[in-house]
């Protein structure tokens, strides 16, 4: 395995942002038309992440003009200029294939991940309850 790493280490990107299944992301894809190159945005929900190392891929689903579209991107491909995480989702599956059977609003909506409570927030709520008790 280590000898394969000698070949692939140089190809693996290090600047990819961390994202998970259920997140809404925007992928900037390089598109070559003739001799011109432009960047196309592809925005959708991450349905699954597959593989490891240089061959790792992820699947993004979006609803385009009422039709479901899925694209699989190799995460280390030079064709991907940028990945941006727009929304973090909270899901209980590793692969969101159930989205294919959903229609309408449900097909594009995923519960957002709750942000971890900061210590300061917890402290402030505690003081509020104390004040309430005193006033009684």
């Amino acid at each position, binding site marked *: *395995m280590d000898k394969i790493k000698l*070949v*692939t280490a140089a*190809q693996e990107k290090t600047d990819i942002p961390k994202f998970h299944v259920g997140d809404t992301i925007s992928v900037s894809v390089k598109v070559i038309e003739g001799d011109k190159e432009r960047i196309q945005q592809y925005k959708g929900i991450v349905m699954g992440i597959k593989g490891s*190392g240089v061959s790792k891929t992820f699947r993004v689903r979006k609803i385009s003009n009422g039709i479901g579209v899925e694209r699989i991107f*190799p995460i280390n491909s030079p064709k991907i200029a940028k990945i941006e995480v727009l929304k973090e989702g909270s899901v209980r599956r590793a692969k969101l294939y159930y989205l294919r059977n959903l229609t309408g609003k449900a097909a594009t909506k995923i519960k957002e991940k709750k942000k971890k409570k900061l210590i300061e927030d917890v402290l402030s709520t505690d003081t509020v309850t104390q004040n309430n008790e005193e006033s009684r």
Partner: protein
Amino acid sequence: MLGILGKKIGMTTYFEENGNAIPCTVIEAGPCNITQIKTKSKDGYDSVQLGFDMIHERKINNPERGRFKKLNIAPLKYLKEMRNFPVENLKEGDKISVDIFQAGDKVKVTGMSKGKGFQGVIKRHNFAGGVRTHGQSDRERAPGSIGASSYPSRVWKGQKMAGRTGGEKVTVRNLKIIKVIPDTNLILIKGAIPGAKTGIIEIYKN
């Protein structure tokens, strides 16, 4: 034919500069030593014997040890003959390394395929099998008739039947070299090659 011995390391994805993802086999090839040069006048045919993969001196027998000592090279595990090898400016004991190949070259790869045990005719000879419906119960993977009755009243020699599959010498031609890394003796070849990982293979220049 110019060639080298190597070891299959495994497969991976290689990205070209334009973004194309290419499935590649990584091979550790050479460095090999020429252990013997056979000539038509002396041996009846022209060939070169290559040695690959260093081995401890303790693990080979005395006559072999003597051969390597005479050539002044480290003992090698695998010895293989290659016919019609261009031997100009080469002598016994010389080193052959991956730099005989370049990216874009077409090569021929020979190896021992994975053993698959006793297999039926569908896997072994690509037979179609029987029909799945029309009241069949046990014909789905059966070979069908194996010959006629009154003539020849026997089964022809070479009739394709079930049996041991795999574990035989297989050659794949016209494989493209994607990259050669001389520092680590690695070659990247597009597509699959015969055999399991760590299998010994021969690579010939087309």
